[in-house]
């Protein structure tokens, strides 16, 4: 009886896992299928072809979009880590006027839904003349309230004696942060890095508003515009362009799976 239960459990788990994985396998295989075969259930194409990839690459600047996405997500992640930790350090370890207010405001910011500020942010970007610039994609994300609060929480637990003795040695606050706090804070820094990068990598609504120039589009945006605008022309081509977005993420996820789950679950970020 117990054995039967175990078998049923594993059968159920396998079925569930397949439900989540199989669509992606089907997608990967469809990109290697000629048009006539795409509708079939088979996982292995009978006449494998690279045509879908060739067409996709020739019709829209996906290489450029890949670079744009990496540049934008990379810059935002570095900024959130570096400037965010400077802020978090000040809030956690330095007494200055307005510090409690800043903490309260940061928590308040988390409660404001993005849709409330979407249009005013958009008109701001228009008025600053930043439509169709990288700045439009990056500036509104230079700081992240969730990240600051998480780092602040972590920094609060680091013993004061470390700061005191570093100050005695004549270290400035920034040096204390980057040479003493950073190495001790790897867990929280990696959590922040992953959810910030993923949030930016997958973001599509904001780029759709502020970028119209194809050369400046990030991957999810170009993919959306390309598939909707009929540029793709066929399922295989459209899915092949989606692969450019998926493959780097799946590779990173396969390697850092535990960190990904911990990071995204603790931040509430969902693609």
């Amino acid at each position, binding site marked *: 009886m117990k054995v039967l239960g175990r078998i049923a459990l594993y059968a159920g788990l396998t079925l569930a896992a397949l439900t989540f994985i199989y669509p992606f396998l089907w997608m990967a295989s469809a990109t290697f299928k000629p048009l006539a075969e795409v509708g079939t259930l088979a996982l292995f194409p009978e006449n494998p072809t690279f045509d879908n990839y060739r067409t996709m690459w020739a019709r829209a600047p996906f290489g450029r979009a890949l670079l744009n996405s990496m540049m934008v997500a990379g810059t935002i992640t570095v900024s959130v880590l570096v400037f965010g930790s400077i802020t978090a350090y000040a809030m956690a370890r330095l007494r200055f006027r307005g510090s409690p207010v800043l903490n309260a405001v940061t928590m308040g910011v988390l409660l404001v839904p993005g849709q409330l500020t979407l249009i005013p942010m958009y008109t*701001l970007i228009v008025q600053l003349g930043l439509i169709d610039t990288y700045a439009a994609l990056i500036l509104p994300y230079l700081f992240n309230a969730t990240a*600051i609060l998480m780092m602040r929480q972590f920094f609060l637990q680091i013993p004061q004696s470390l700061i005191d003795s570093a100050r005695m040695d004549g270290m400035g606050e920034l040096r204390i942060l980057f040479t003493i706090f950073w190495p001790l804070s790897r867990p929280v820094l990696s959590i922040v890095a992953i959810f910030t990068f993923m949030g930016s990598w997958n973001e599509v609504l904001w780029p759709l508003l502020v970028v119209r120039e194809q050369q400046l589009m990030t991957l999810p945006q170009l993919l959306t515009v390309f598939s909707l605008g009929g540029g793709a022309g066929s399922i295989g081509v459209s899915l092949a362009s989606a692969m450019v977005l998926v493959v780097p993420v799946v590779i990173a996820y396969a390697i850092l799976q535990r960190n990904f789950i911990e990071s995204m679950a603790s931040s509430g970020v969902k*693609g």
Partner: protein
Amino acid sequence: MRAEQRSGSLMAAPYVVFLLIFAAYPILFALVLVFLQWDLVTTPAFAGLDNVRLLANDGRFWRAVANTFVFLSIHLPLQIVTALTLALALNRRLVFLSFWRAAFFLPVVISGAVVAILWSNLYATDVGLINGLLVRIGLRPVPWLTDPSTAMPAIAAMVTWKNVGFYVIIYLAGLQYIPRSCREAIEIEGATTWQRFRHLTLPLLLPQTILVVTLSTINGFQLFIEPYVMTGGGPLRRTYSIVLYLYTNAFAYQKMGYAATIGVALAIIIGAVVFIQRRVIGRAEAL
């Protein structure tokens, strides 16, 4: 210490500037925009309560609100039941535990745009994978995204599939906090598996359930890329979402005042719905 004061203020200053530009200003200006008519080209004109009046009588807006409730009425129960079932299955000694967890979580890390494009193909009436399976077991193909009565449920099922791994992790964390002594005590009392689930596990998971409901609800009100990519809001506007309508007003019609009004209304609706949900769940618990 003056030096500490000074470096503290200096280090926090960039963030304060950022908050003023990208939080305080947009929030205040959103409220100003409600009273303006502005196409971004000509000078903004004061419009009094025109935008609010228009919104109150705008059938398309209320259609989008109703669509969201249809979405939530399918998505919420489905999400809770699936997440809880998978979490309970994982909450024991298993071979390959981290593999199962990673598999369920996979769609969470994939961009919503990709998932939407992938599923428009899975749902495709003639060549879709799902109808292919249905035909193979002898059923008739279903026009998932082109039939007004199935389009929104299809999207709700897809979003559940995409996010469920996230909520499995939340429930798993909750399950790990249930003390072994409680389980043993209730087992000694002779409780059946169902009774144990109903009177011990489920009540103790209430904080997680509230979190799942809140996050899924907020997520549901922010539905955008799925209808944008999969249906364009159709058929018969049955999948038109509030954010899609907001985006269309801003981007296609250049109505900044009205789009901002929709944004403010959306924020109020989200706040109200989440507040009511928490009261209701809290009261159900008291019974």
